[in-house]
């Protein structure tokens, strides 16, 4: 699996589109963090008068990490679309399918490579708020925990993105279908809240993220994220097996 991760990382880092996405995300992170700080400074005189007022760290976890994670989620379909669908279009997927490597290893290798890129993006996101430590007291552990949850959430999104990529014939349709699937899973929480159907909200990926970002990791949330990743990996593996049995049509 290591050769596949290494190969995929090498290919990803040579893709100019990835660097453009990271640059845009960094701009978004900077904007969100400074906006959250500004809003906190405006409210601070009033917050100081109330009991149990949120500290800067708690404030940033709600006002910065959630929108930053949403921005990252929008980038996931673009990160994942090339992995199978794009490779299928340009014929590069055959390199892996012809190699003496199992389909599960290919699926996990690609997922791990995307996980490494997402870890870098989460680290970048964390650095934006941790930089504020120079001027304000910040709970480093709480923010690192929030970003670990963000990474886990993005990994689940990447699983869905890779599954769409493995099932689609073109990179564009993979990107659109995974973006649609992720937005639908995000909006399910709104639908569940307005209709009062709890199980609908529980299916939403945003519900589990919000709970995780609140500072408490429920076992149910962890199981949800791991289940999404496992099911997506199974779908990818199955799609690759089908490609090996019925041939890869480019």
């Amino acid at each position, binding site marked *: 699996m*290591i*050769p*596949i991760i*290494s*190969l995929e990382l*090498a*290919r990803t880092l*040579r*893709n100019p589109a990835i660097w453009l996405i990271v640059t845009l995300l960094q701009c978004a992170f900077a904007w969100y963090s400074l906006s959250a700080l500004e809003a906190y400074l405006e409210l601070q005189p009033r917050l100081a008068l109330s009991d149990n007022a949120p500290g800067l760290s708690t404030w940033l976890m709600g006002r910065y990490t959630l929108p930053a994670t949403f921005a990252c989620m929008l980038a996931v379909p673009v990160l994942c679309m090339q992995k199978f669908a794009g490779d299928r279009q*340009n*014929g*590069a*997927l*055959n*390199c*892996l*399918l*012809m*190699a*003496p*490597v*199992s389909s599960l290893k290919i699926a996990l290798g690609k997922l791990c490579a995307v996980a490494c890129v997402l870890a870098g993006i989460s680290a970048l996101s964390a650095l934006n708020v941790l930089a504020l430590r120079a001027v304000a007291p910040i709970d480093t552990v709480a923010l690192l925990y929030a970003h670990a949850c963000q990474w886990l959430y993005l990994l689940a999104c990447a699983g869905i993105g890779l599954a769409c990529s493995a099932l689609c014939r073109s990179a564009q349709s993979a990107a659109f279908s995974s973006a649609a699937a992720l937005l639908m899973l995000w909006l399910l929480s709104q639908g569940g809240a307005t209709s009062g159907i709890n199980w609908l909200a529980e299916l939403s990926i945003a519900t589990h993220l919000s709970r995780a970002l609140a500072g408490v990791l429920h076992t149910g949330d962890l199981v949800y994220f791991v289940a999404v990743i496992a099911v997506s990996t199974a779908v990818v593996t199955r799609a690759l097996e089908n490609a*090996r*049995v*019925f*041939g*890869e049509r480019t």
Partner: protein
Amino acid sequence: MTTPQTDTPPLVVRQLTLHRGQAVIVADLALRLQTGDVLGLVGANGAGKSTTLQCLAGHLSPSEGEVWVAGHNLVDAPASARAHIGYLPDPPSLHNELRVSRHLRAIASLHGLKRAASDDAVARVLELCRLTDAASKRIAHLSQGYRQRVGLAQALLHQPAVLLLDEPTNGLDLDSQDQFAETVRAVSAHCAVIISSHHLSDLRACCNRMASLTAGRLIEQHNNTLNPRRDTHAGREPETVFIRVHQPLDVDALQCLRGVVSATAERDGWKITYRGDTAELSQAIAERGWGLRQLSPMLFEPGAAGAKSTPSVSLEPAP
């Protein structure tokens, strides 16, 4: 690194059949290749050459039949069998973002070669495929001919027992085609090779066995007589070719050409039975200024007995 068992034939195919719905893509194919065999698979577009190679490469599961590669069943132990197969698809499957050497190193590591062995293997195939000068170039910037060479280098990296080449001379100039034939002859000492092409002339330069496919059926096998290195027959079998020229000709003019056994006028050309190298025939026509427009082999006499009605002819030797 893959080392086939010494007494096991590199490739044994038994009753290989592939259905897609009602259509039969490959029918009842039987084949046994030994190390040193270079089988040319010729056939028209859509005859099933690429599909057959995909089946043999484990890139497509057969509906029936067995494929054994260096003693490993391709269906039951696909990973072990694939480790002994080098496959150059058409078009070659490459990572365009990477440089040639990085791409080859990545493929070597997928085949389980360690760092030092991988570096050695990459250096070997770069030299063998004359890619040393292009090693540091990005694959996306390479010409089609160079991409074919990278594809061939990729197929040879792990020293496979079976080498499958699908239309390998596509996009190669004449010099490169000669070099390609030389490379195939060099590597065939250590493996069995199958080359598919719809150009008979491409295959004759390097093959010692020939088979033709029509609608997925292996219907003819004849010894290649134009490869001097491998020619074991004292005389040459006459073959039938179809030619079209710009100039109006008569039978006498054609029969004056050296090697022509007979010539018959067809609707828009000539059917010639010829004993010798077709390259020499085309050169002789060119020297006479007749303006050669087409010279193609006629593998099957229209309506000849056995051409279509005969089921697949097994290339597997009788027990």
